[in-house]
């Protein structure tokens, strides 16, 4: 290899490698390290023992997983038919762009809009009162949390499902119909299995962020649902117990890795490897 090529590689590696070391590897090691130390910097497993022996933390984790699951199911149920129908439209790329557009709008603003919509004197309650329904406390409830979280996640579910549906050869559908399957059977036996990679990618794209939500839980959910993300934020920025916060962080990372293993697309990984 000519010397110049080596020099060139070194030149590229300097900034990029520095970034990898400083902002990818070091933070992860520091997080793990924090979770294994006491306030005075001594090695301990106390944080993990505390976490796994405390009913509060375990219940919180269970709740967080449960709500993430609910959010994922709600978005999947809404998104699959949407993606399916979008795929049959003529100008489908344009309509897809319209689905994606809201994701470019700052998350805080969308959340803020819901504060206005759902507050006690807000539009939804005003609208309801036209029908004689007494204003309800909509904000700061589990339902509002689910609603807003699902609202924000829907495009992230639609896109991968849409892409996998678009890749299906339309002749397969025709063949299935020719062979006597009705619309429903074709959907269940042909389309759904073939769009599985998209469903899995969508679940991955929704479930993991749902576990780590923290801003919506406060602004919309009124901290009734504590997610792993909220717990981390509270430990780092409110109670200043970084050791325990890091422990929950490590648990969130483990949960993330488990989710990724479950939703891994086997066909694709084989093709790549």
């Amino acid at each position, binding site marked *: 290899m000519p010397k*110049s090529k080596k020099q060139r590689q070194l030149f590229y590696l300097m900034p990029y490698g520095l970034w990898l070391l400083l902002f990818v590897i070091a933070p992860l090691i520091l997080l793990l390290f924090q979770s294994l130390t006491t306030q005075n910097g001594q090695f301990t497993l106390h944080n993990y023992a505390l976490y796994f022996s405390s009913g509060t933390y375990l219940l919180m984790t269970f709740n967080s997983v449960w709500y993430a699951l609910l959010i994922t199911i709600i978005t999947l149920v809404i998104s699959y038919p949407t993606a399916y129908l979008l795929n049959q439209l003529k100008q489908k790329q344009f309509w897809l762009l319209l689905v994606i557009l809201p994701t470019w709008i*700052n998350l805080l603003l969308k959340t803020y809009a819901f504060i206005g919509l759902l507050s006690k004197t807000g539009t939804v309650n005003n609208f309801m009162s036209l029908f004689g329904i007494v204003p309800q406390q909509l904000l700061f409830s589990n339902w509002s949390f689910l609603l807003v979280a699902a609202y924000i996640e829907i495009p*992230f579910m639609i896109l991968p499902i849409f892409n996998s549906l678009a890749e299906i050869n339309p002749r397969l559908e025709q063949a299935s119909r020719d062979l006597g399957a009705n619309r429903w059977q074709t959907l269940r036996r042909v389309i759904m299995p073939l769009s599985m990679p998209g469903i899995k990618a969508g679940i991955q794209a929704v479930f993991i962020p749902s576990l780590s939500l923290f801003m919506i839980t406060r602004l919309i959910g009124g901290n009734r649902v504590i997610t792993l993300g909220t717990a981390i934020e509270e430990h780092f920025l409110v109670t200043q117990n970084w050791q325990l916060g890091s422990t929950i962080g490590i648990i969130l990372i483990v949960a993330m890795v488990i989710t990724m293993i479950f939703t891994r697309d086997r066909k694709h990984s084989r093709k790549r490897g």
Partner: protein
Amino acid sequence: MSRKFKLGNLYLGSVFVLLYLPILFLIVYSFNAGDVMQGWAGFSLKHYSELFSDTRILEIVVSTFLIALLSSLLASIIGTAGALYIYNLKHTVVKNIFLSLNNILLVSPDVIIGASFLILFTVMGFALGFTSVLLAHIAFSIPIVVLMVLPRLQEMNQSIVASAKDLGANNWQMISRVILPVISPGILAGFFMAFTYSLDDFAVTFFVTGNGFTTLSVEIYSRARQGVSLEINALSTMMFVVSLLLVLFYYVISTRAVKNKKRSTRLVLPASEGL
């Protein structure tokens, strides 16, 4: 059959209404003469004039854009270098290791990125503020630039590089005259993505911002906690317009780049930022 299709259209229509209703709602009320997000009291631009006379907000807007511009510029440079490095690696295993390391920040939840950067800055004895936010934004934007540039490099015609070498191009000429022009659409797309990532980020910034410095997202968060103010609606409308323009710009460059390649348009989503 046709009835079913109509039912389908109805469903799609209601999904779109659901997606856009909150945004439209925000925009419409920014023109309300009243002070709350209910009851239409007539058209007025008073919340916009309030916004433009609020120096605190204007300062924050300027610093938010400054952070976005600086971080996406620097991330584009470092990310392009990273993509070139990964592209030149011959060993498949090493290449895959670098690619996986590159993607860690893309898949990590923002809370983890924010918390671990906070530990990092504290351990290094770095004061939280403008610089820490800038560094954090550069850090989480680099992997996306790498991912946008790498496919361009892989599509690059190898014979161009070989002939440039034959014709006596040195290292610098090779990069500036041959490789960079070819991959520039990728770098531009990466820069654009990094820019919107930075503008939109809330969670990571929230962790590393300290007391003195805020960006728009963090400011909106703290104001939203105090309740509704239509000045935020006016601000939202402005930001919505900016986002629209950015998307339009990106759409134009990406379709222009696609025209000569056959690759289908794959729209890229901003990762679920700040969740």
